[in-house]
């Protein structure tokens, strides 16, 4: 897809209505840089053959801090497509409020038509499901949160 003039107008409106001063969009080989009037232009670093000034490594991702304490994160054991149900149209393996045991199947991770089962690994109650059905999850991605048995 390409951007039409109307699309660009709409993006400008969005920027104007936002609290941001600058928008940088890269898609399909197209680069769009918008800077709001009066905002200090941000210098784009020139591509350098030597990577000497890269910023320090970002800290490992930290999950939202406002979450209920004591919840156990159930993560994907591998990269693949996450399915919540055994087959399309069937009820999901687990839902919010479901009780799980450590060996309860919580989903399927597909890697090139090979179906792998993901298990809870903990006993308790499912309080949140973060991974979306049919979408790619990476190795170690957070799938759901479980309130463990006391």
């Amino acid at each position, binding site marked *: 897809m390409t951007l039409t003039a109307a699309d660009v107008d709409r993006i400008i409106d969005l920027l104007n209505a936002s609290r941001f001063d600058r928008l940088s969009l*890269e*898609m*399909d*080989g*197209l*680069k769009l840089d918008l800077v709001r009037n009066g905002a200090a232009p941000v210098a784009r670093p020139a*591509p350098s*053959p*030597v*990577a*000497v000034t*890269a*910023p*320090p*490594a*970002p800290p*490992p991702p930290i999950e939202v801090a406002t979450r209920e304490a004591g919840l156990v994160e159930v993560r994907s054991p*591998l*990269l*693949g*497509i996450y399915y919540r149900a055994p087959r399309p149209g069937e009820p999901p393996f687990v839902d919010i409020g479901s009780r799980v045991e450590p060996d309860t199947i919580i989903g399927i991770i*597909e*890697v*090139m038509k*090979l179906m792998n089962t993901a298990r809870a690994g903990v006993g308790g109650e499912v309080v949140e499901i973060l991974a979306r059905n049919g*979408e*790619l999850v*990476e*190795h*170690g*991605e957070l799938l759901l949160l479980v309130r463990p048995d006391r």
Partner: protein
Amino acid sequence: MAIRRIFVANRGEIAVRILRTCRALGIETVLGVSEADRASLGARMADRVLCLGPAQPALSYLRVETVVQAALGAGCDAIHPGYGFLSERANLARLCEAEGVIFIGPTADQIEAVGDKLRARAAAEAAGVPVIPGGAAGSPQEAQALAETIGVPLLVKAAGGGGGRGMKLVEQAEDLAATMDMASAEAEAAFGDARVYLERYVRSGRHIEVQVLGDGEGRVIHLGERDCSVQRRYQKLVEETPAPHLPPATRGAMHEAATRFAARLSYRGAGTVEFLYDVPRDAFYFLEMNARIQVEHPVTEAVTGTDLIAEQIAIAEGRGLRLAQADIACDGAAIECRINAEDPARDFAPSPGTVSAVHWPTGEGVRVDTHIVDGAMIPPFYDSMIAKVIAHGPDRAAALARLRTALDGVRIAGVATNLAFQQAVLADPDFAAGGVDTSFLARFLDRAKVAA
């Protein structure tokens, strides 16, 4: 078809190198990383990062299905495999072909054709590319006749041997029969296989390779050669172009042989045809073809002014060769030096760890390809190469002077490296004179031991 989003299936400096060209071309990038590389420079540069699996390569970077699933799931239309890892796995190319993802490289069939030594040798012979003279010898009369065509010195090799085992040198033609008897008896005892064959012995050889680009339709161009004779246990340490003191007729014949070989395969993409150059005989023999971008590609880019990754992408898009042979001119000379996190004082043992501070040099004609920045981790699971310092100049002496100055400006704190060792290699008078053979580094190390 224009490629809009590339999955980079590699790590380290080559991932950074590929990401850089993608960025310049306006192509979106998705980088597959292991758990150990989540905070790498490449991971910070890519538009999207996907963790493939744990640090061990067999559980992440070497998983063909996981890589293709990641590329498909992230909406990529092509995969760049870099070098090493999955770059020469025909099954990755084949799975890409089946799934409609562009593999930025040759076809699966071409990878197989060059990956099998016997098939590759047969293809070289069919293309009129010289291979090392030799062959099986049954009767003493056959052996004598074969030895006359090969010429002395020659090697008697055990068919069941390999890796330097089961070889005997014949210096005089009259010693052949006795040596063959002995070799055959020893081979029977050692390998349970008495068969031996003869092969020309190269007393002094240089590793010279030719960079080629093919459109997949039979059109192939070359981008000159690289001399990679400075090796320690088959690991290249310094590479340069052009090959010093190579007779012009030999150089031209090598370029033509490489082009012929690749054209016969209708080779697609960037590849390298490796030759053993027999110094005393001024002859060259086909060794193998590498069906990938190579570590040492920057020296070729320096003298030809090309971006080989961009050419790979253009070919993968089906745009064919954008350059004709006449467009390729080699300007001056370039030398590359590999910086490895390994300790020469401990027999080059890998030295993983955290780089607390690093400074890479800049300067006219100097290029550094690296993924190492302040605080970078060098995990113990992967290759120890952390950077390539490349210098280009109007001639070899100028390139060498620039490279030496550049290395003087390198600072790496936190891990042991071969930097000082490489500085000593570049300061060696034989290296400075140019044209050293593949045993140069072993001699250099022996001298260093004696001096110590």
